[in-house]
């Protein structure tokens, strides 16, 4: 069984391949949804828990002491991505938030997708 559902993983992969497109508009919304679903599926598969919100997921993830050896890289990448995923929720023009989302995709999502790939 794959770690993340095929369609969800496909969206994440598309975002990694084309960060600029997924940095704004409806694509960003679909990326946000895909990221939330994927992170929820990962925690369900590995630790058998689902959390309502992203901060709750982070909190429960940080509390996990026994991380299976083969999933260490996935969990490390997921923690990093969850910590910087706030940029997916922004919609204002206070700064170059498109650039922030591109940075998130390049620095946090790409390593996560790379870590998930062997389990798909």
């Amino acid at each position, binding site marked *: 069984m794959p770690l993340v559902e095929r369609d969800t993983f496909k969206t994440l992969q598309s975002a990694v391949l084309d960060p600029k497109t997924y940095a704004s508009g409806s694509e960003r919304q679909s990326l946000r949804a895909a990221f939330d679903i994927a992170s929820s599926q990962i925690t369900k598969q590995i630790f058998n828990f689902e959390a309502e919100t992203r*901060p709750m997921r*982070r*909190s429960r993830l*940080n*509390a996990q002491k026994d991380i299976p050896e083969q999933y260490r890289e996935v969990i490390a990448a997921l923690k990093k991505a969850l*910590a910087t995923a*706030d940029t997916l929720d922004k919609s*204002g*023009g*206070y*700064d*170059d938030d498109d650039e922030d989302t591109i940075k998130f995709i390049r620095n946090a999502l790409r390593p996560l997708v790379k870590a998930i790939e062997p389990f798909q």
Partner: protein
Amino acid sequence: MDKEIVLKTWEVYQGLVQGLGETCWKIRTVFYTASSAVIAYAFVHSIPFLYVVVAVLSIVFLVLEAGYKQIQNQYIVKSAQIERTLNDLLVEEPHPFIPEGGIMTAIKTPTYRGYCRLLRWRNWLFWVPYAFVFVCAVALACSRAGIKEPADHCDQAMHSKAP
């Protein structure tokens, strides 16, 4: 990490954001009052040059408010960064996020790029009122609105002498 310090910093940033927001509104209200008063004066007293003054005023006030807005936006970004630190503390992150440069109120001076960013479509609510007054002032100046034509005076004089 000391939560109290982070929380206090967030409050300070929020206070600065609020103060700068109020200043922006003051600039905007002064602009609306001044421009409408000048347009009315120009129309009543037939001084077309004042329409040009209004057009210039709209650019001056736009630049002034945009400058303040840039400063406010920098504090909003700082505040958002502190919120990330607070969230990290909330979820007991072993290494909470510390913003670049730590805690500081120092900011960059407004830039040309920042002005351009404020004029994007996304921020139309900010610049459209200024653009509207500018266009109206130019249109009034071009149409010479409120200016009495000399021919009208002659006609009026002739009609008044007729009986």
